[in-house]
C-alpha cells in the first residue's frame, strides 16, 4: 500500500511540475511602497553579457540601448528612421568613404565625465580589436580617429550605404573610456578583462544605469540622473528571466510581472483577463526551412526541383495560423519593412504541382530526410518544434518522409554553423535594420554557406549581391534587392521562408506609452505606469 501512496504522490508531482516551470522567487511586483515606479519584464532572455563589445544577443540590446548612447539610433516611433543620438551633425565625403561626425558636447556619463570623440574612438576600436560576436558589424570600417575633441572621423573600406544603420547597433555604444580602462578594458583581446565589470556596471550616458545582473535570474536597471534627454519615468526596470512560457503567463496574471515576452500563440488566444492587453508589433524575423544544397549532405534536397516540390507542398496558411498574431509570408529572404521588399510569397500549397516536380526530379515516390529543430523553444511566440511537426505532416502528403531530429540549442547551433544539417527549421533576425543584413543568405555568405551554397553554384546571384553591397543610390539599391529576391525564388535558393511573425507582447494594463522597436525591443525610457 505504501508503494501505491508513493505512486500517487509521484503522479501528483508530475502535474505540479507541469504547472511551475521555474518559479524562483515571487516578490514585490509593481511599485514599491516608497512611491518609486517599477516595471518588471518577464522574458526568456538570451543575453549573457552586457559588454557592448561582446554582447550580440537580441535581448541584450534592450538593456544596452537604455544604458548607453550610440552615435545614431533608430527612432522609437519608426524603425526605418535614423536619428542622431550622440552625433550632433555629420558630413559624408563625395566618394562615400569618409564620415566626419560632430558629437554633442553635453552627454554626461554616470561617472560624471562628458563623453567625447576620444571615448567614441576607444569604444569603436575596442569593438573592432576584441573580435567578439558583434565585431563583424565593424567590418566595413577601415579606420576611426578622433580628429578633434568632439569630432570623429570614420573611414570605410568601400562605400557602405548601410553604415549609419550599423552605427545604430548597441555594439557601437559609447562609454567613459577612462573608467573602462581602469577596470581592465584595453584594445588588445589578450589583455582585455573588462567583461565582468560591464556585466555588473554601466558607464554610459543613457537614460538608465545597469545596477545588477545575475545570469539566468535577473538584470536590474535604475534611472540615471545624468541623461541629457527627457528623463525616464520609471525608476527601476527589472528583467526577470523566466524561460517557461506558462510560468510567464501565470506571473503576468498574478501581477508579478508587467510584460510577458514569450507567450505562445495558443496561450495568447485563450488569454482573457481584463488587466492584460496584447499588442502586436512587426518584426523583421523570418522562419524558414533550410536545406543543404551539397549533394553529399543534402541528398535529394540538392536538386532544385525537389526544393520546388517542397515549396509547393508546404501549407503556408496553416503555418501562419499556427504562428498566430496575424503574420505574413514574404517571397523569400527579405522581410517586409525593408526597402526593396518584393512583396508576399505567391506560392500557395498545390499538391499536384509538388508531385509533378517530384516526378521531374526522379523521386515520384518521395524520399526521406532528416530535419533538425530545437525542442521547447519559441521565438515571437512560434515554437520551432511545432513548425517542424506541421511541415512533416504537410510533406507526408506528397510522399516525403521528414524525420525530426530534436537537438538542444547548443548542439543545433554547432551543427548548423558547420553545415552538417541535411535540413533544419531556422529563424533569422537581421543583424542591423538594413536590407544589406539579409545578404547573409546569398551564396558564399554566412548563412548561404551553412547549407554549403557557394558562389560557383549561383554566380549571377553572387554578382548581384556584390552590387547590392556598394550601391549608394537608394532607388537603384531597392531595385537590385528586388531582383535578388526574384532570382532567389527562380533558382530556388536553399531557404523556404514560411512565416514573418509579429511579436505579440502581453502586458499589464497599468503600463502606458509602450514602444517596441525591432532593433531595441522594449524602449524602457519612454514608458510610464499609472
Amino acid at each position, binding site marked *: 500500500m505504501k508503494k501505491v501512496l508513493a505512486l500517487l504522490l509521484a503522479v501528483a508531482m508530475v502535474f505540479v511540475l507541469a504547472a511551475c516551470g521555474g518559479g524562483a522567487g515571487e516578490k514585490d511586483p509593481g511599485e514599491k511602497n516608497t512611491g518609486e515606479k517599477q516595471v518588471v519584464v518577464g522574458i526568456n532572455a538570451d543575453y549573457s553579457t552586457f559588454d557592448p563589445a561582446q554582447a550580440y544577443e537580441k535581448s541584450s540590446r534592450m538593456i544596452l540601448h537604455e544604458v548607453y548612447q550610440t552615435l545614431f539610433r533608430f527612432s522609437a516611433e519608426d524603425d526605418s528612421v535614423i536619428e542622431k543620438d550622440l552625433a550632433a551633425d555629420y558630413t559624408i565625403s563625395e566618394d562615400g568613404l569618409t564620415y566626419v561626425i560632430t558629437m554633442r558636447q553635453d552627454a554626461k556619463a554616470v561617472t560624471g565625465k562628458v563623453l567625447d570623440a576620444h571615448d567614441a574612438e576607444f569604444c569603436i576600436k575596442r569593438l573592432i580589436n576584441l573580435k567578439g560576436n558583434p565585431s563583424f558589424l565593424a567590418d566595413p570600417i577601415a579606420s576611426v580617429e578622433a580628429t578633434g575633441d568632439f569630432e570623429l572621423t570614420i573611414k570605410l573600406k568601400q562605400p557602405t550605404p548601410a553604415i549609419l544603420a550599423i552605427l545604430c547597433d548597441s555594439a557601437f555604444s559609447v562609454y567613459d573610456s577612462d573608467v573602462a580602462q581602469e577596470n581592465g578594458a584595453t584594445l588588445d583581446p589578450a589583455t582585455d578583462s573588462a567583461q565582468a565589470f560591464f556585466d555588473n556596471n554601466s558607464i554610459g550616458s543613457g537614460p538608465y544605469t545597469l545596477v545588477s545582473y545575475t545570469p539566468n535570474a535577473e538584470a536590474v536597471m535604475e534611472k540615471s540622473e545624468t541623461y541629457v534627454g527627457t528623463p525616464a519615468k520609471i525608476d527601476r526596470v527589472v528583467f526577470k528571466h523566466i524561460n517557461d512560457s506558462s510560468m510567464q503567463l501565470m506571473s503576468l496574471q498574478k501581477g508579478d510581472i508587467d510584460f510577458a515576452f514569450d507567450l505562445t500563440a495558443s496561450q495568447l488566444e485563450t488569454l482573457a483577463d481584463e488587466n492584460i492587453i496584447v499588442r502586436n508589433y512587426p518584426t523583421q524575423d523570418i522562419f524558414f526551412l533550410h536545406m543543404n544544397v551539397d549533394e553529399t549532405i543534402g541528398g535529394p534536397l540538392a536538386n532544385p526541383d525537389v526544393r520546388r516540390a517542397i515549396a509547393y507542398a508546404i501549407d503556408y496558411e496553416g503555418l501562419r495560423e499556427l504562428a498566430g498574431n496575424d503574420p505574413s509570408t514574404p517571397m523569400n529572404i527579405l522581410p517586409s519593412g525593408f526597402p526593396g521588399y518584393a512583396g508576399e510569397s505567391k506560392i500557395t500549397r498545390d499538391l499536384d504541382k509538388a508531385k509533378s516536380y517530384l516526378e521531374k526530379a526522379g523521386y515520384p515516390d518521395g524520399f526521406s530526410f532528416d530535419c533538425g529543430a530545437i525542442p521547447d523553444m519559441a521565438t515571437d511566440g512560434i515554437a520551432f518544434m511545432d513548425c517542424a511537426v506541421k511541415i*512533416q505532416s504537410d510533406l507526408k502528403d506528397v510522399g516525403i518522409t521528414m524525420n525530426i531530429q530534436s537537438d538542444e540549442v547548443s548542439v543545433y547551433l554547432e551543427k548548423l554553423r558547420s553545415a552538417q544539417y541535411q535540413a533544419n527549421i531556422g529563424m533569422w533576425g537581421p543583424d542591423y535594420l538594413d536590407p544589406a543584413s539579409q545578404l547573409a543568405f546569398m551564396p558564399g555568405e554566412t548563412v548561404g554557406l551553412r547549407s554549403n551554397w557557394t558562389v560557383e553554384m549561383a554566380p549571377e546571384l553572387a554578382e548581384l549581391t556584390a552590387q547590392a553591397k556598394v550601391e549608394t543610390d537608394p532607388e537603384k539599391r531597392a531595385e537590385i534587392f528586388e531582383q535578388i529576391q526574384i532570382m532567389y525564388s527562380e533558382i530556388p535558393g536553399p531557404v523556404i521562408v514560411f512565416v514573418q511573425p509579429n511579436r505579440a507582447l502581453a502586458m499589464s494594463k497599468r503600463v502606458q506609452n509602450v514602444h517596441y522597436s525591432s532593433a531595441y525591443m522594449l524602449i524602457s525610457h519612454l514608458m510610464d505606469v499609472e
Partner: protein
Amino acid sequence: MVKKKTIRFIKKNPLATIGALVCVLFLLVAVFAPLIATHDPLEQNFSNRNRPPSAVHYFGTDNFGRDVFSRVVFGARISLPAGFLVVIFSCVFGGIYGAVAGYFGKTLDEVLMRIVDIVMSFPSLVLAMALAAVFGKTMSNAILVIVLVWWPKYARMMRGLVLTVRETEYVAAAVALGEKKSRILFSTVIPNCVAPLLVMASADLGAAILMFSGLGFLGMGTAPPAPEWGAMVSDGAKVLNYWWISVFPGAAIFIVSIAFNFIGDALRDLLDPKLRNLE
C-alpha cells in the same frame, strides 16, 4: 471448484482484480488500437484546432487539430511495450550480473558491487536525462537509458538471493557431482532465485511506465509527432485553458501505472510473503 476459488480471490484482493482488469483492458487497447481509434493519430486538421471534447472527438483535439482520443489509444502502443521492455532488460541484465557477483564472490563480487553502488548513487531521472541527451532522442534510446539506471537494484537483489541459495545442500550436491561452475550457476542457482525477482519486476512495471512518460514529458523520449503520453501532457501543459490536451494522456499514465502496482502488490503477497516487508 475453480469458480469458488476465483470468487474468494476477488473478495480477498479487490484491488488486484481491478488492477488486472484495467491492465487487460489497456493491453487490448494497445493490440486493437487501429480498430478502437476514431481518427489517424498523426492526421492534422487545421480547421479544427483545440476543440473541447465532443461526440466526434471524445477527448477533444490538440494544437494541430489531431484527435486526442486516438492519440491516447495509440499511445498505449508506445508506453506499454516500453514499460515491459525496460523491466525485462533490467531484470535479465541486473539478474545475471548480480548472480555472477554473488556466486563467484571475493574480489569479483567487490568490484561488481562497487560499480552497482556508483550507478545507484546518481539520481536516476537526472542520470537518465543526461544519457538521453547524449544518445539522442528515440524510443529505443529512452528505453536503453532507463535500463541503464535501473538494472542495479535487480543486481543487488539477485546477489542477495544467490548468496543464500549458494549455501543450500542441492548446490553442494551439484558441486560434489563435479558440475562446471557456470553450469551450476545457470541451471541450479538462478532458477531457484527467479521467483522473487519476477515479483519485484511486476511491481516495477508501473514505475517503469511512469519514468518513461517522465522522460517524454521532459522532451527526452520519443521524437515528435509520436503520440507518447508524457510528451502529450507536456504539449498541453503549455496551454492550461485547453485542459483536455494534457488531462487525458495524464489520466492514462496514472491509471496504467496504478493498475500495474495493484497487480504487483498482489503478486508479492501471493508468491512471496517474505518480501512484504522488504523495500
